[in-house]
């Protein structure tokens, strides 16, 4: 049942909103910011920070907008003199015991206290008393650092661990001005979603161990993207550091933050997705290489010419039956279209393997994490690359390789050699042609005939289709490393070289 829409006045402007909507939300929808710490749409409105106070016509005192509901004829002022004074005085009390250690605080630049002081505070300090001291630099889990002095006790983090992860590692202990946030005895903040507490913390009390002191946030650029670490497709923002390349050990990607999407990941991101980003700057394939018969670097045009002519030769001699393609679900929808045009339409290839190696399945839970650790198996399925088309299993591939039934093996991102271990060299020495394509070196990369560097998804525009069939766009955040180019352009380059003749082979 949809709520009745009513009209109310916000700062003198007549607006419509669903009856019963919280004023803080209705204001947000109208583009009016009301300062707040404790309120969070996913975690409720305990109303303890008392910062979101507004003037309500007819009310004898300021009202907290996180607990005031919109009703017909309501008149709210967020920017009147009494409202502004109430907000500023609440903020002042938040800062009485705050250590003001902004120069050494990692939250600087994205701190709720700094931002609100500039927007809603701007008073002169009247504090003559010494600050309360609490514990600092506490490593409370693998990813999160706690500074109790900076905490404003908004209880967002404790409500997150209580309500969302249901792990309750954190609590507000003690009473009154002596109270502090901390781990419960014997606990560690090591749940699979611990990094979200850092996002939720409006101040510098919870900071990211990985990101701390690496680079100031104002040097970072943000690009909307999709997490590629499982098939959920969590919406993320990539924070890249290209303005200060000498910071953070030269890493281009400084951190990953979740982007709110109510349909996919709400406000959250799992720690695996959040902290897995270092791989984008590590062990990458940079150069186009041919390793067999002898090792040499190639220009793209030469490599594609050579590979296309070898594929044509073997295909004409041995037929498409002996060509096997192993691909992960890391391809974008654009890649999948080019993949189909090349392998199916141009080459007539019939033998595909899309299943992850058995050791490549992750943990699944009822919050976000999915067991397929690739983003876009669905995009392939939409083009017919479902399990029905995947005529190979890992066992069958291994058997066919041993039996010499496969003349060509084209591997895209699935590091088969790592999975096969000691058997890998023997198995990969059987086909006449082994191609390794993808963003990373991988073990297979050392044993292939051709090594084709592809872009990681953060270096291109594209779309993934998540496990529910939702098509989501991601944007290019960084330039490709070395010679890497998108998978689709590699497939397309090969297809054009193979000529129109094979087109009819379907």
């Amino acid at each position: 049942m949809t709520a009745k829409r009513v009209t109310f006045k916000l700062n003198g402007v007549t607006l419509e909103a669903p009856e019963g909507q919280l004023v803080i939300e209705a204001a947000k929808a109208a583009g009016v910011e009301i300062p707040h710490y404790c309120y969070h749409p996913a975690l409720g409105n305990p109303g303890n920070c008392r910062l979101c106070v507004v003037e309500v016509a007819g009310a004898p005192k300021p009202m907290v907008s996180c607990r005031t509901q919109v009703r017909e004829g309501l008149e709210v002022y967020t920017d009147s003199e009494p409202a502004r004074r109430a907000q500023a005085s609440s903020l002042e009390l938040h800062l009485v015991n705050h250590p003001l250690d902004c120069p050494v605080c990692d939250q600087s630049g994205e701190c709720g206290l700094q931002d609100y002081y500039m927007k809603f505070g701007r008073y002169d300090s009247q504090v003559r008393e010494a600050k309360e001291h609490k514990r600092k630099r506490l490593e409370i889990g693998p990813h999160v650092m706690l500074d109790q002095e900076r905490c404003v006790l908004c209880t967002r983090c404790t409500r997150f661990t209580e309500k969302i992860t249901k792990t309750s590692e954190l609590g507000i202990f003690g009473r009154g001005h002596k109270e502090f946030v901390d781990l419960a005895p014997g606990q560690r903040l090591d749940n699979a979603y611990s990094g979200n507490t850092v996002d939720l913390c409006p101040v510098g009390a919870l900071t990211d161990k990985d990101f701390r002191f690496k680079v100031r946030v104002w040097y970072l650029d943000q690009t909307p993207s999709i997490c590629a670490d499982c098939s959920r497709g969590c919406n993320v923002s990539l924070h890249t550091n290209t303005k200060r390349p000498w910071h953070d050990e030269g890493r281009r990607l400084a951190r990953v933050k979740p982007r709110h999407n109510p349909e996919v990941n709400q406000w959250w991101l799992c720690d695996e997705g959040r902290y897995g980003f270092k791989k984008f700057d590590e062990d990458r394939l940079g150069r186009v290489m041919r390793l067999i018969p002898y090792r040499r670097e190639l220009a793209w045009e030469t490599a594609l010419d050579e590979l296309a002519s070898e594929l044509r030769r073997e295909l004409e001699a041995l037929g498409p039956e002996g060509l096997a393609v192993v691909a992960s679900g890391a391809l974008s929808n654009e890649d999948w279209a080019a993949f189909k045009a090349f392998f199916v339409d141009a080459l007539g290839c019939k033998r595909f393997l899309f299943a992850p190696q058995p050791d490549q399945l992750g943990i699944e839970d009822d919050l976000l994490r999915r067991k397929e650790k690739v983003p876009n198996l669905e995009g392939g399925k939409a083009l017919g690359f479902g399990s029905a088309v995947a005529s190979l299993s890992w066992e069958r591939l291994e058997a066919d390789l041993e039996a010499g039934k496969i003349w060509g093996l084209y591997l895209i991102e699935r590091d088969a050699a790592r999975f096969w271990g000691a058997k890998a060299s023997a198995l990969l020495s059987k086909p006449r042609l082994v191609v390794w394509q993808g963003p990373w070196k991988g073990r297979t990369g050392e044993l292939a005939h051709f090594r084709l560097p592809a872009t990681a998804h953060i270096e291109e525009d594209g779309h993934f289709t998540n496990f529910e069939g939702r098509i989501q766009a991601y944007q290019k955040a960084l330039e490709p490393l070395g010679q890497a180019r998108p998978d689709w352009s590699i497939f397309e380059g090969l297809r054009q070289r193979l000529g129109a003749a094979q087109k009819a082979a379907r």
Partner: protein
Amino acid sequence: MKILTRHFDNPKLHELETYRALGGYQGLAKARGMAPQAVQEEVKKSNLRGLGGAGFPVGMKWSTVPPPEKAPERFVVANFDESEPGCFKDRVLGTRAPHQILEGLLIACHAVSARWGFVFIRGEYADQYDILKKAVAEAEAAGLCGDVKVRLMRGAGAYICGLDTALLETMEGKKAWPRQPPPFPTVVGLMGKPTVVNNVETLSMLPHILVNGGQWFADIGAKGDPARRIHPSGGTAVYSVSGDVERPGIYEFAMGTPLRQIIEAAGGVRGGRALKAVIPGGTSTPPLAASEIDVPMDFDSLRGVGSFLGAGGIVVLDETRDMVEVSHNIERFLAHESCGQCTPCREGSEWTTRILERVLEGGGVEPDLANLRRVGENIAGKVICALGDTVGMVVRGYMKKFPEDFAKRLPAKPAEAAR
């Protein structure tokens, strides 16, 4: 006029036999012969108001409990968490007349059709806990509890539990962070069920109202004056009198009795000293100057002079008392007891205390007074419960009525020094 303390000269009043011989449990019997609705009406007629400090009309509170068809499970809680500095009347009532409390609780249970009655008692009242436990056992053995199960629960040292919603949180096994009504406890209370929380003195009045009738009780109290927004307050109140008086103790008087008369009953100011100030309702209520003690002691008359009846904790301060010390003592208490939930109160109560501390230690500066006033005003009206409002109200009260005590602890203003 004595109602609750009428038989306090009897040393065996706490025993069931004696209590019954003096007419005890007749009110319960009468109530049980009436429909719950009729009991509520009788109590409404009596103008009984909550004596824990809020002064809310009891009958009206009960009538907000949804009908049993809508919510079959409902509770009554006797609030015996007396912790306001200056108040000790509940302790004496519990020591001397535990059955009076219990009978009141059982009447309230009947009036709202509750099958569970609780007594929440502060942990430091261990003797009173034992006395009450024995009384419950006696009443149960005598079949007086009927189908009501009575359960006691002890606190563990937190003033804020005396506030109904904080008390309910505590009873639910949580820390005592007050809830933010609405909904009010009579609709969503203990474990989400409709719950009536009444102070033990309030409950003690019920047997007498049932026996003698609501009109009798109303006639005893203050009549009220609608033109001056003074509502009637039925019956009597039991005052705790302490501080600089000759005979500290409890004194029962009809609602509306002038404060002066109560202080005189306690023997007046000790040692023949002059009166400087009186706290009328416990230390959370602003002080009255010596000139203001002719005020009638009822909820609304006191509001008219900028203070509150509170829980009737009268503290007498003689001419030797320094109001900076007094207000520091009270603010330190409030900061210690602030639950920590709302930022303005948590930070503001401590800040206020520390400013006063610095002033007491001789480090006061000229802007301190304005700042004390400002900090208090910045907490007031912006927090969930009344404790935060009290922080500013108290220090403002002392600064307003005794400015010379504050002024003499601050460096003279340059203009005055030059003179």
